[in-house]
């Protein structure tokens, strides 16, 4: 075996993974994250850096174009696998690695692929061209329209009363640390969000209940669910959200700890084994003055406004900004620590899921989505990402028909 071939093979023994989650596949995402982490494969956040695209969930035919787009914008050797069912992921990853190694070893002479898209691929071409804008008066004979097949930016008023270029940038559904399936069509001027259109991938009717709300919904349907498992689910949901927010804020270390704790809570670790670690992590976040300094004041949502918008759950109880919501999550997690192993059955009329009341006229995440435009407009791009993460709507809930008992709610 020649040296170059051997090096190519070695290079692909740990391919970089870009995981994309489709709505309704939360469980698969958690499984994929845990498996990839166990193997120590690097996780990346842009197609350009990835070798392996892992799609969690069953792609509908509508999803094909944008998934293809992501795959095309990955540098060779690139591979896409679909993890449609739980339990098969380890095998799928093994196969993918073998294929990638073969692909890398039999690489032909380098031909450079041209990709037409940016890091975030949506299902329609977004105007990500920072090019020309509308005519400036007369005397300049140039035509507007498209360049290289990309639409040109136009001008509009902005926050600072300068008429600058508007860019239409779709964010999601493939962004990392992003609610699965959410698509925000942003109108950016510079990196200030001037307009937001909330959209999402099609939500296929699924027999599966939304993962994070499952215990309460099952109890409502009359199944026997222990309180402990409901508490575990809530803690894991909050740890997941907190991990996501901390990752967006850029505190990777604590984000990773939250995610590890989340997996341990879900896998049934006892209170004694994780309690200390969990409390330490919560204290660490609580005491971090730089964190407070960094995200305080972002996405202010006073309780009265939240209530008016129909928000329930931690976002309402936090009664404040992104930092308050983060602490609310973590405190609920800490409180839940007591009840992790509670074997008593969950009361069927307990309908308070991790994101709010499930017996309201609409799922709690719907309200979170509805207040997004109001909170995001005028924020800078980075702040907008933090605000979205601090609300962390769960789009799985949208497919949820109003729970029985909602009629009289």
């Amino acid at each position, binding site marked *: 075996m020649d040296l170059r071939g051997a090096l190519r093979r070695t290079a692909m023994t740990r391919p970089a993974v870009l995981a994309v989650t489709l709505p309704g596949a939360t469980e698969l995402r958690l499984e994929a994250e845990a498996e990839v982490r166990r193997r120590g494969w690097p996780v990346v956040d842009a197609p350009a850096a990835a070798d392996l695209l892992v799609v969690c969930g069953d792609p509908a035919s509508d999803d094909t174009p944008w998934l293809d787009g992501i795959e095309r914008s990955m540098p060779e050797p690139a591979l896409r696998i679909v993890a449609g069912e739980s339990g098969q992921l380890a095998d799928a990853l093994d196969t993918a690695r073998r294929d990638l190694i073969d692909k890398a070893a039999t690489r032909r002479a380098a031909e450079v692929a041209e990709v037409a898209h940016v890091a975030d691929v949506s299902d329609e071409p977004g105007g990500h061209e*920072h*090019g*020309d*804008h509308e005519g*400036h008066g007369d005397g*300049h*004979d*140039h*035509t507007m329209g498209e*360049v*290289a097949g990309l639409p040109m930016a136009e001008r509009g008023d902005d*926050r*600072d*009363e*300068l008429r*600058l270029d508007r860019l239409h940038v779709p964010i999601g559904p493939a962004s990392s640390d992003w609610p699965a399936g959410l698509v925000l069509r942003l109108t950016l001027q*510079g990196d200030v969000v001037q307009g937001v259109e909330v959209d999402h991938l099609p939500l296929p009717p699924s027999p599966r209940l939304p993962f994070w709300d499952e215990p309460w919904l099952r109890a409502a349907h009359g199944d026997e669910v222990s309180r402990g498992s409901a508490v575990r689910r809530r803690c894991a949901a909050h740890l997941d959200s907190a991990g996501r927010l901390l990752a967006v804020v850029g505190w990777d270390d604590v984000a990773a700890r939250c995610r590890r704790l989340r997996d341990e809570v879900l896998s049934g670790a006892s209170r004694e084994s994780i309690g200390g670690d969990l409390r330490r992590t919560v204290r660490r976040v609580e005491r971090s003055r730089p964190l407070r*300094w960094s995200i305080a*004041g972002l996405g202010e949502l006073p309780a009265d406004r939240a209530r008016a918008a129909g928000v329930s759950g931690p976002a309402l109880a936090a009664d404040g900004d992104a930092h308050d919501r983060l602490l609310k999550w973590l405190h609920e997690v800490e409180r839940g620590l007591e009840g992790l192993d509670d074997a008593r059955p969950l009361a069927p009329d307990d309908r308070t899921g991790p994101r709010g009341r499930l017996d309201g006229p609409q799922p709690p995440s719907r309200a979170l989505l509805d207040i997004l435009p109001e909170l995001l407009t*005028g924020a*800078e791009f980075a702040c907008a990402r933090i605000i979205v993460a601090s609300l962390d709507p769960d789009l799985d809930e949208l497919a949820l028909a109003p729970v029985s008992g909602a009629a009289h709610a």
Partner: protein
Amino acid sequence: MPDEVIFWVLALVAVAAGVMVFRFDSMARATYALLTSLLCVGGEVLLLGLDYLGVVIVLMMTIEMAIMAVFMVMYMMNPAGLMPMTMVHNKKGAAAICAAVFAVLAAGVLLAPWPSRRGRPSADPTMDLGLSLMGPQMLTMMALGLALFATIVATVVLATRRGRYDRFGDDLKARTPDDAVRGGTGR
């Protein structure tokens, strides 16, 4: 001999990049062509034995052009130059004037009876410059300082539309300024 080569390379690159500034369609490229040209100017100054000034020119021009690129992209049409377009007026007249200016300057340079070199550069020209600015040229230094300060004030006034009444209310009593973006000192 190496000095000779360096001089010619820098000179040719400086002039070529200078020409390209006005030939590129792309604003980013034009800005960076100007940067190239000015970096070469810095190099020539280094070559003449003015270490401090040469490096300072490199430092300042890099930062200046990096910031200029922002304004270019912000305000200019067609910043990426994806659509060929011209935005010039009176090209022929200007070319004639510039050719004439160059001819006159060149004639002056070549014909003038330049005085011969008097004195020798001191061991540390940077020290010279400092002593001069803090001594005989103190007035220049102070004028520069004042000019820079006036510039800062004037440009902020020109460029911003918000004054303190907008930020702290009509009676200036608001504890936190009403800004679009919250700052970091928690006022």
